[in-house]
């Protein structure tokens, strides 16, 4: 057994108790949804800094340095780019084209729409993707006299899965990539081998679970989709310019590590070019930014920074170090992280879970322990967990709301109905991911 180089007494200090208490209190306030989650997090952050200063374990400087600027700036820049893309109608155009390609086959339609939302969510915010695709899906399915519910659930779940595969696809992957110092390509090639089986498993299971709703329609059903995709694009010149900017940004993401550029800086290059050439008013970009989300993340970083400053996360890290240091138990630890992170994320918001885990894993990394497999495990776990309940991810909530507004008598998705599909989907995708993770563990080290 390798001895732990840093001996920390396994006792809670008073500061640790205080910091953990504030964290638990803040998280309870967030999860209870009594207040807006950003308000709850800000209150928690203010209390953490105030009490931390009074009891000498946290400082204002410490709070500011706990905020991960790379994560927040990357999120901000991507939100601004998405704000430019959204009104162009480009995504609606793709959605209608794919719907027509399905030829009126419900199964093909589900696969195509889910594939589109997954791929787009790899590079753009999945909430935006679903916000655009969900109402379009309702329109298309209602035109075909189909129940939109399976399609909406599929889009939400698979946009969540798609987002896990890249460094910029989901706030959790942005945070993990930033904390672990992982580049875009490394993230993609390690996550895709897990995401692809999860994607296939989920689609197959959805096709099975909703086999009655997805029964083939009459042969000429496609004629009912009387939609003109060309009218979706309101300003073709603007769409071309925005598409060019996004292409530059995505290309730069693939080589950012070779150019020694932070992913956030790459995204800001895109924003700067967009400001020069898009022709859109910058107010549009600023207005569509989800400032409350950014504030929520910043406040969470401050709260967790306080717990870290109290020494609590070091203590946890040292407790985990023994397990992580041993190559024989590292695989088990990774699998545990996948399942525990997924199950926790199924119950509560995955962002606080991720932000709490980051300094623990970073601490292990600074001790010279190879925690790389644990980063992948955390990314896939928190990403998949959101699929199990109707409130597990923002995309789920949007799709439920669209289903209710669709006017179809069977479209309403109750929490139990979501859970009935979400639980088998989560378990099947977790089994598929765990098999890949265990069989090719060397690849994830």
């Amino acid at each position, binding site marked *: 057994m390798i001895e732990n180089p840093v001996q920390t007494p396994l006792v809670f200090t008073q500061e640790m108790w205080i910091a953990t208490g504030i964290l638990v209190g803040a998280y309870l306030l967030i999860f209870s949804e009594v207040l807006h989650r950003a308000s709850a997090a800000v209150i928690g952050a203010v209390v953490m800094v105030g009490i931390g200063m009074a009891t000498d374990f946290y400082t204002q400087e410490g709070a500011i340095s706990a905020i991960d600027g790379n994560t927040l700036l990357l999120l901000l820049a991507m939100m601004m780019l998405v704000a430019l893309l959204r009104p162009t109608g480009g995504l609606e155009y793709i959605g209608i084209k794919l719907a027509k390609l399905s030829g009126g086959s419900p199964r093909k339609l589900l696969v195509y729409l889910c594939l589109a939302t997954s791929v787009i969510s790899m590079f753009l915010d999945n909430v935006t993707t679903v916000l655009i695709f969900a109402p379009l899906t309702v329109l298309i399915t*209602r*035109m075909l006299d189909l129940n939109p519910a399976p399609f909406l659930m599929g889009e939400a779940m698979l946009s969540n899965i798609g987002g896990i595969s890249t460094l910029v696809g989901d706030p959790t992957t942005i945070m993990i990539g930033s904390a672990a110092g992982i580049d875009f390509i490394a993230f993609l090639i390690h996550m895709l081998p897990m995401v692809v089986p999860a994607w296939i498993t989920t689609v197959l299971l959805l096709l099975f679970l909703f086999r009655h709703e997805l029964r083939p329609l009459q042969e000429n059903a496609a004629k009912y989709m009387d939609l003109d995709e060309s009218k979706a694009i309101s300003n073709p010149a603007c769409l071309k310019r925005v598409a060019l900017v996004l292409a530059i940004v995505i290309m730069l993401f693939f080589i950012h590590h070779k150019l020694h550029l932070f992913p956030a800086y790459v995204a800001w290059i895109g924003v700067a070019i967009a400001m020069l050439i898009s022709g859109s008013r910058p107010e549009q970009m600023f207005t569509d930014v989800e400032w409350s989300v950014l504030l929520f993340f910043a406040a969470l970083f401050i709260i967790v920074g306080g717990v870290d400053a109290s020494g609590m996360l070091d203590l946890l890290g040292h407790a985990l170090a023994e397990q992580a240091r041993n190559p024989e138990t590292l695989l088990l630890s990774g699998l545990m992280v996948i399942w525990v992170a997924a199950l926790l994320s199924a119950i509560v918001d995955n962002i606080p879970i991720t932000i709490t885990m980051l300094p623990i894993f970073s601490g292990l990394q600074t001790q010279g322990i190879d925690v790389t497999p644990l980063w992948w495990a955390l990314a896939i776990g928190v990403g998949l967990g959101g699929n199990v309940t109707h409130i597990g991810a923002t995309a789920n909530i949007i799709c439920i709301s669209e289903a209710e507004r*669709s*006017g179809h008598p069977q479209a309403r998705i109750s929490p139990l109905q979501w859970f009935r599909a979400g639980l088998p989907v989560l378990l099947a995708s977790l089994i598929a991911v765990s098999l890949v993770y265990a069989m090719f563990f060397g690849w994830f080290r």
Partner: protein
Amino acid sequence: MEIIHLIKPTGIARPGMSIREVFHICVEADVPGVPFVDSQGVITGKISIRHVLKRTCIPDFMVRHAQLLGDQLHHLALSPEQVNNVLSLKADDFVFPEKAITSSSTPFAKALAIMEEMDTTYLFVVDDGVYKGTVSVMGIAQAMIAHD
């Protein structure tokens, strides 16, 4: 110029009426909406044709993609049965609070300002708690032409 000369008397909607009855009142008076009064005769809101149609005939997903729709709606088209169902609904469920109320001594400009503020094209005229009728932008335009 005051709106007193432009008031168009209309019927009013009462509790228990159907949408069919309310639409008849609107069509007869050529107005887009009528006040709704409670059992005490007090105006508690209005019923607007546009609001009823929006809630019952055009789902939100169609509104958001109206430009993309072709002329063949098939399953999304309104069937005679749906029309009958809408007309049979109770008017009470479509009442929404109305603040676009003014008195007959209101000048044109103020009436227009209230309409703009309330995002509507017509106002209910009430004097001393008694409903007198409706003034619309159409009536104001007619008055302007008459003075030309």
